[in-house]
Each structure stands twice: as structure tokens, then as C-alpha cells.
């Protein structure tokens, strides 16, 4: 079970309703948000029902083994993206890279993926064809095999186009132990590259908000980059791909899971000008905008330079930067030093950011 149950990447329908679980007898969009409400659903509905069969490890992927066999990472994710095609990619790319990255965030080498489709009656075969092509290309690119799958069709009245679920298996090397609970005071926070790119790309073609931009989604498989980082021999403590909820959500989750405070320096955040401009136009915070080809890494201070160098030598990490530190203060919270020298709390997003007028 992952804590990003339904990966609705900046889907309009995904704005979160702020009502807590107990106050509402039905599922609302917020439950799929990957934020506080999804967490409640897992904690108060699913886990109690699963009882002894469940695990409480809530990282991006689960680490399992059979007897004395190799440790495996196992992950699943579902994709309902609107629009299905956006600058730089499609739901197909996200479906493959999303699960590949969940596995990679445990330090595993992704190997096998399943693909299950739920299709709305009336979906254009052309569109499905394009998506399938994208999935094939992304899988080949990532070096994973698509070994099993399923297709179901629902009435044109239920569902919206194409839903894809992918589940993946990866293999962990000996000695690799990467978990959200391993951040320690003194550790350094690294960012693999420019933030906010995917979210801006998708938002630019959303009805009612369209704006012209050359920016394309950064969707990419990250296991090669992770291999390079682990390959330095450094003990990487935490890896996270900041998708829905952006860097803010990831850092907040890590801060809570590890019980450390995290301090970031705004001036050091790699925000490309074009993301700054789009966020300025709509009134968004780049820290809360989704990324699909980036990772956040937390490593011991002594390993930081080594890992940073390895990242910068990899095509997906050329713009890697140190952005902050884990501190023994405000544990469980993320705080930023603003450009002017003040401080502000970087909050866990309640749901998707809404463009504002004020």
C-alpha cells in the first residue's frame, strides 16, 4: 500500500475537500489527494479492516522477501490524469515512470511492471494507441518488462476516459536501506534538479487556466540516477520523488516520519524562471507544485559532496543542489529561510493549490 493511493496528477477533479473522514459518510475527492485525508482513510478504514494481514510501513514501496531470497521492492499506483496528453508526455509516461520511481526510491532496481486499464466506453482508439505507445517506450527506456496486464471497460457514464494502474517489482541490493524514517539531525537535503516543472506543464493546458509556455513535463525514470548515488558507497538515508504536493509534501512527510526538523534555504531552491513566472501569474507556491522526474535525497553531511558530484555527473541530476539541513528544532516541521532573512513555515499542502486572485 502506498501513501499516494490515487495519483491524480494535478487533476482538476483532485482539489481536496477539507472535511475530515468522520464528518462525511461518502468518499470525496480529497480522499485521493495523497495528503492528510488519504492518510486518514488508510489509518481509519483500510488498516483496521485488513487487520493482521496489513503492514504499517508506509513508504513509497514495500520491501518484502520470501525466505532467504533477495529482498524485493513492491509498489502500486493508479493514474487518472486530465488532460491525458500534455507538453512533454502523457498518462502513459507517468504510469510507467511513476511506479518505476516508487521502486527506485527504496533503492531498488525496477524489473517488472503490470499494467491494468479501466477504460470508459467511447474512448478513442487513437488515444489509447498513443498511450500504449508511450507506455511501451517508457518501459523500454527504463529497462523494465511489462509482464502482465488487464483491461476492463466501464459505461460511458462512469469514469473519465482512461484509468491506468501499474504495479511493479524491483530488486534491492545487499545493504541498501532507504526509508523515510532514516533522516537524522545534521543530515543534508539534496534536490536533483529544477522544481515545479511538471505541474506547470500540466496546468498550462487545463481548461480555464490555459497559458502559453514552452515548458514540458520532466517525467523520467530515476533508478539510473539512484544507482549512481548508491554506487558512491555513501549511505543514502532517504529518497523521495516529490510528485503530488511537491517538495513541500515530501519534506513534511519525511520530517514527520523521521521526527526531525527540516530547514531549507529559499535562495538555494532550483526554481527555473519560467516556473517562477507561472506561479506568479496564478498565485502558486513552487514548493507545492508536482514534479515527475526529480528526487529529494537526505544523506549524512559527510557524504553530501560525494553524492552531489555523482548526481551532477548523471543526465538527470545535472542541476542538483543542496537545499537544506535536518535540524534539532521544530521537529516534524519544515521551515524556510526567506530571501530577505525572515523565516516561514513550509506547510503540508491540504490538497492541490488553487490559483488565487489576491
Amino acid at each position, binding site marked *: 500500500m502506498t501513501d499516494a493511493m490515487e495519483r491524480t496528477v494535478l487533476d482538476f477533479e483532485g482539489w481536496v475537500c477539507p472535511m475530515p473522514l468522520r464528518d462525511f459518510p461518502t468518499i470525496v475527492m480529497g480522499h485521493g489527494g495523497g495528503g492528510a485525508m488519504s492518510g486518514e482513510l488508510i489509518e481509519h478504514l483500510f488498516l483496521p479492516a485488513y487487520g493482521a494481514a496489513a503492514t504499517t510501513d508506509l513508504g513509497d514501496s514495500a520491501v518484502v522477501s520470501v525466505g532467504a531470497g533477495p529482498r524485493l521492492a513492491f509498489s502500486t499506483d493508479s493514474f487518472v490524469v486530465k488532460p491525458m496528453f500534455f507538453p512533454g508526455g502523457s498518462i502513459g509516461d507517468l504510469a510507467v515512470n511513476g511506479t518505476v520511481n516508487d521502486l527506485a526510491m527504496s533503492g531498488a532496481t525496477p524489473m517488472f511492471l503490470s499494467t491494468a486499464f479501466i477504460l470508459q466506453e467511447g474512448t478513442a482508439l487513437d488515444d489509447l494507441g498513443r498511450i500504449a505507445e508511450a507506455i511501451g517506450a517508457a518501459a523500454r527506456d527504463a529497462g523494465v518488462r511489462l509482464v502482465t496486464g488487464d483491461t476492463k471497460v466501464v459505461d460511458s457514464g462512469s469514469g473519465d476516459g482512461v484509468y491506468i494502474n501499474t504495479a511493479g517489482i524491483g530488486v534491492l541490493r545487499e545493504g541498501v536501506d532507504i526509508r523515510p524514517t532514516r533522516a537524522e539531525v545534521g543530515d543534508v537535503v539534496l534536490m536533483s534538479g529544477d522544481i515545479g516543472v511538471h505541474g506547470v506543464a500540466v496546468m*498550462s493546458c487545463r481548461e480555464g487556466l490555459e497559458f*502559453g509556455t514552452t515548458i514540458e513535463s520532466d517525467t523520467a525514470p530515476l533508478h539510473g540516477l539512484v544507482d549512481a548515488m548508491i554506487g558512491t558507497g555513501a549511505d543514502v538515508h532517504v529518497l523521495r520523488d516529490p510528485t503530488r504536493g511537491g517538495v513541500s509534501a515530501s519534506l513534511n512527510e519525511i520530517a514527520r516520519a523521521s521526527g526531525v526538523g527540516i530547514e531549507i534555504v529559499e535562495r538555494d531552491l532550483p526554481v527555473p524562471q*519560467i516556473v*517562477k*513566472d507561472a506561479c*506568479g*501569474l496564478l498565485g502558486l507556491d513552487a514548493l507545492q507544485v508536482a514534479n515527475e522526474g526529480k528526487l529529494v535525497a537526505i544523506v549524512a553531511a559527510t557524504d553530501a559532496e560525494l553524492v552531489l558530484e555523482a548526481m551532477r555527473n548523471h543526465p538527470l541530476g545535472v542541476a542538483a543542489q543542496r537545499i537544506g539541513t535536518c535540524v534539532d528544532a521544530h521537529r516534524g516541521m519544515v521551515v524556510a529561510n526567506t530571501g530577505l532573512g525572515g523565516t516561514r513555515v513550509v506547510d503540508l499542502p491540504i490538497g492541490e493549490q488553487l490559483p488565487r486572485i*489576491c
Partner: protein
Amino acid sequence: MCLAIPGRVVTLEERDGTQMAEVDFGGVRKDVCLQYIPGVEIGEYVVVHVGFAIQRLDEQSAIETLANFEKMGILEEEFGDGFELAAKQAGVVDEGVRP
């Protein structure tokens, strides 16, 4: 009242009898209604709020304002605060109203 940002007019077009424009915000482009800025020309900067240009941006004024802010720093450096200077020279730290 709010989020209004400056952008550069790139193209002009009349749509349904209304003056519209494509405005460039540093690489991000958006359709904006220019009906409230009569006689605007391509290359001019306007202040945009919810899809409407509400005022021209006075570039000269912007440049002057920034220059004034720069000057404040220079004056401070060159002349400083007389008392502060004296205090420093006397080896006394002046707390004043600074935090």
C-alpha cells in the same frame, strides 16, 4: 486585491469587438483583455489582474524607483549614521532601535 503582475504586450487582436492581446510574463504567455488601456502598443508593459490589463506599467518610474533604493545603500555606506560612526570609533556599540 491583489495579484496583478506586469507583462509585455506581444500581439494585438480584436475579438468580438474587444481589444485582446497576448501578453508575455517572462516566458509564460496569457490572453489578456486590453479594453481598459486604449492606444496600447506592442512592446508596452501593462499590469494584469484576472485576465485584464488594469493600468500601464511606467517603465521609467520602475527604473527610477530601483535606482533610489540603490542610492539609499550607497549613502548609508558612504556617510552612515553619524552617531553610529562615532560610537564605533569610540568602541561603544550602539543598540538603538535595531534588533
